């Protein structure tokens, strides 16, 4: 799916993750930048999770920045889902 606009979700609070998404032009691929307070321990898992969610939404051309403050998996998935639906202009039931 093609992203429509820049979007973000999450916060810089502890146990949360901030996701920023920027659409890239066709065939530019995925440019993913992850930083985390637990990068050494969970960096690989975080990267795999981000790619899995992008796969689920069939997003191939994206610049994604993730700044993690020790979020659990359900939080990471939720923030990615929110940022992606916002970037796709598919968010529902909000005043955004």
């Amino acid at each position: 799916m093609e992203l429509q606009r820049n979007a973000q979700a999450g916060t810089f609070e502890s146990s949360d993750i901030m996701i920023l998404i920027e659409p890239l032009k066709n065939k530019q691929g995925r440019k993913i930048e992850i930083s985390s307070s637990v990068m050494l321990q969970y960096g690989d898992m975080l990267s795999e999770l981000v790619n899995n969610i992008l796969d689920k939404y069939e997003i191939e051309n994206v610049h994604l920045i993730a700044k993690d403050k020790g979020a659990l998996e359900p939080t990471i998935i939720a923030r990615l889902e929110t940022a992606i639906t916002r970037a796709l202009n598919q968010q529902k039931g909000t005043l955004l």
Partner: protein
Amino acid sequence: MKTKRRTMLYIPGNNPAMLQQGGIYGADSLLLDLEDAVALNEKDSARILVKNMLNSISYYNTEVCVRVNHLDTPFGIEDLETIVPLQPDAIRFPKTETVKELKKLIDIIESIENKHNLPHNKMTIHAMIETALGVQNVFEIAKFSKRVDAITIGGQDLTADMNIVNAKDGSGIDLARKMIVMAAKANNIDAIDTVFVDVNDEEGLRLETEYAKKIGFTGKAVINPRQIDIIHEVYTPTEAEIRRAFRIIKEFKKNKDAGIGVFAIDGKMVDAPVVARARHTLDLAEIKY
């Protein structure tokens, strides 16, 4: 024995740290809030976060309720579409004013449940009374459906609706409190008191909880985990009360076998209502008799 609802702790729906720790605070019930605790431009974010948390986090034996937005807002329907399929223990519906809107809510919930092949008798509904009109209609609201198993009072919104100062002595909402309790008792459901907003005033919280207990509230909403122990203390019978309740039950059984319905303990009459209160005391203390 019914689920105890001495404390219902509000957890802001867009706060991952509090959502993931909800089960460890010791409250009887958690209120994952999609309504007032969430900014209007983060409603989608909170809804998706609560959905993922409900799918993954264990809240142990704590009852889990989700407060959705009202159906008159642009958020209410989407909240129900997302949360109802996950079947938390209860949905809390804010600003319930009429039976008509309660019927609309239940119709929507049951049509979502039908779509997902879910039963209609698992998840209950807590109707929140937060306006003068809601207070006037509370008896009808409480008796409308078996799914409504608790009525709660929202003191902040009620005082705003009545255009009065939310006095610390609660005088402005005292009639509403008592009408809500009476409606709940008449329908054998729980009545939950409003929050105590000054988290630093522990003595004030204790006094207000003692009053709420005295007039019949089953429990109290909580905005900070620090308030939980104080409310539980108020709602937990003292050793003297438990000893007396035991004596009453024991004497009642003995007299019943002898065909006597009314008797005295320490010069005070004991009849069926006193025995019922003794049973309630032992239930609160989680003691089998």
